[in-house]
């Protein structure tokens, strides 16, 4: 079943969205993710989805708000500066509990930065990003295949929890081509009695809002959101283990760097160092429990976080490790992809 193709990450993501039952796409071109909207524009005549090239990322995310509130499966994709522009809208979407999928094909920053790949938007992704207490569900694909699989998962999680879901990808995953298995299209039947589709005689009017002017009501809304986030944290943590069982050094990396770190683990093992890789697939919820278990093991000597930023996920690891073991960080910024050799060299220096 399905179909095997050789595809670019961004295009595969677009195809996955179509197969997941995409009904509305709203986006603004920005390198290195423009191939998503280009692909969807090319495919549009064959399908039934609405596609609008918005006047800005600000407009795009608010179109997502409107489309989601109308009960449709909707998505936007962008890259770092564009994702910053969407933060206000995402805060509204999270508060109004609207299911949608957003994608950040991350590039190097801060500022206009560089169009080369980066993981510098990790904080923005896993800490909410906009104003107020809210969480996105954040998935970190590390291959073209996962651009497909996690996009489909993202739509389902969004609907399941009425929550915005984000893919934090990067310019390399978005641009590279790999073999990919595309699943058969899934019929999507919306069950959204809360959607604003027109008040029929058999129900009260539906109101989609993030405005709760009375403090007690606003607090109740916050409590409800936090309950939901707790449930997501309990049920949706996903991670991949590689050579963990006897590992004394736990390397942690997500997305592109996790693939480099697999190579690091192989190289380390060749020279007799017992290294393993723990890769969070859900960046939020973070695999805190797994990290804590490893930190409590006598076998494990230290953790090493490898990221294409100045050290962001390392803070989440430290929170989970709670001082039980040293946590080191190795990273490159500016769009530079670290080599397995430099990572192994750094890891070797930490071995006492």
């Amino acid at each position: 079943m399905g179909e095997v193709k050789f595809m670019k990450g961004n295009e595969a993501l677009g195809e996955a969205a179509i197969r997941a039952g995409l009904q509305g796409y709203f986006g603004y071109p920005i390198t290195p993710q423009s191939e998503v909207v280009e692909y969807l524009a090319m495919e549009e005549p064959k399908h039934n989805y609405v596609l609008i090239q918005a006047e800005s990322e600000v407009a795009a995310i608010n179109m997502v708000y409107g489309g989601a509130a109308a009960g449709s499966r909707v998505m936007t994709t962008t890259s770092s500066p564009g994702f910053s522009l969407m933060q206000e809208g995402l805060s509204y979407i999270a508060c109004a509990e609207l299911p949608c999928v957003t994608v950040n094909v991350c590039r190097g920053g801060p500022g206009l930065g560089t169009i080369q790949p980066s993981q510098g938007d990790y904080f923005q992704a896993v800490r909410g990003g906009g104003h107020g207490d809210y969480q996105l569900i954040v998935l970190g694909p590390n291959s073209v295949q996962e651009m497909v699989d996690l996009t489909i998962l993202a739509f389902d999680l969004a609907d399941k929890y009425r929550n915005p879901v984000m893919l934090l990808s990067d310019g390399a995953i978005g641009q590279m081509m790999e073999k990919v298995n595309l699943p058969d299209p899934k019929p999507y039947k919306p069950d959204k009695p809360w959607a604003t589709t027109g008040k029929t005689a058999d129900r009260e009017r539906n109101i989609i809002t993030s405005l709760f002017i009375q403090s007690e009501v606003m607090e109740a809304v916050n409590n409800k959101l936090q309950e939901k986030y707790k449930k997501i944290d309990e049920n949706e943590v996903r991670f991949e283990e590689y050579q963990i069982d006897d590992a004394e050094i736990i390397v942690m990396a997500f997305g592109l760097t996790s693939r480099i770190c697999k190579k690091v683990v192989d190289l380390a093992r060749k020279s007799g160092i017992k290294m393993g890789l723990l890769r969070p697939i859900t960046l939020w919820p973070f695999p805190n429990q797994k990290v804590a278990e490893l930190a409590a093991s006598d076998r494990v000597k230290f953790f090493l976080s490898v990221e294409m930023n100045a050290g962001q996920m390392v803070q989440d690891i430290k929170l989970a490790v709670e001082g039980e073991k040293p946590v080191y960080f190795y990273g490159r910024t500016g769009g530079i992809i670290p080599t397995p050799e430099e990572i192994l060299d750094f890891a070797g220096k930490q071995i006492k």
Partner: protein
Amino acid sequence: MKEGYELIYKRPKTLTTKRMHYCPGCFHSTIHKLLMEVVEEMDIQDKTVGICPVGCSVFAYDYLDVDMQEAAHGRAAAVATAVKRMLPDRYVFSYQGDGDLAAIGTAETLHACNRGENFTFIFINNGIYGMTGGQMAPTTLEGQKTTTSPYGRDVAKMGMPLKMCEIVSQFDRVVYVERVTCNTPANARKAKKALKKAFEYQGKGLGTTFIEVASNCPSGWKCTPVESLDWLKDKVYPYFPLGVFKKPEEKE
């Protein structure tokens, strides 16, 4: 109905009975009523979705008994665009103030108009930021005093008040543009007629429809409701003329 009596006025069923929060004399309540009368008369309550962004009318969903979305400040046109595209057979309107439509949301307004999005803008232009306590709006008149233009709007610094009907009439895909007001019963009836026409054109899928209400704000203008009507007549209508700016050619 008691014998010998005739019902000549009633609350539309599409308006909730919740007591409105609007200040005495404000046109918002009148426009809400006119809008809901149109929805009732056209029998489209089950097909109507409204968007109310930030401004005094942000709570409009408390009063309008139709499905409603509250939008971020300035983004109603983007939100309405998506709602209408996803649900093309529904009647969609945005209900926006001057700060929302003509300052923070100008880009969304103009691009929705340029695309000819098939929904109805209801633009309440009262020349001031009522909700936040009377600051200058993009439509505040030259010399008009507000809390952020305490010596009167200086057009050398702040530019001229934006004439949105005149601007959006330029777009090919905007089909119906009218500026109305509610200072007299006759004008309120005209306003209702304009709203109804806009919805009818929308129902035919003709393109963007845009109704501006030259409105008032006794609280923000620091005057009585009656004085606000004088201000409208003496200052507002001369700069923001009432009337039809554009309409589709109707085959008789």
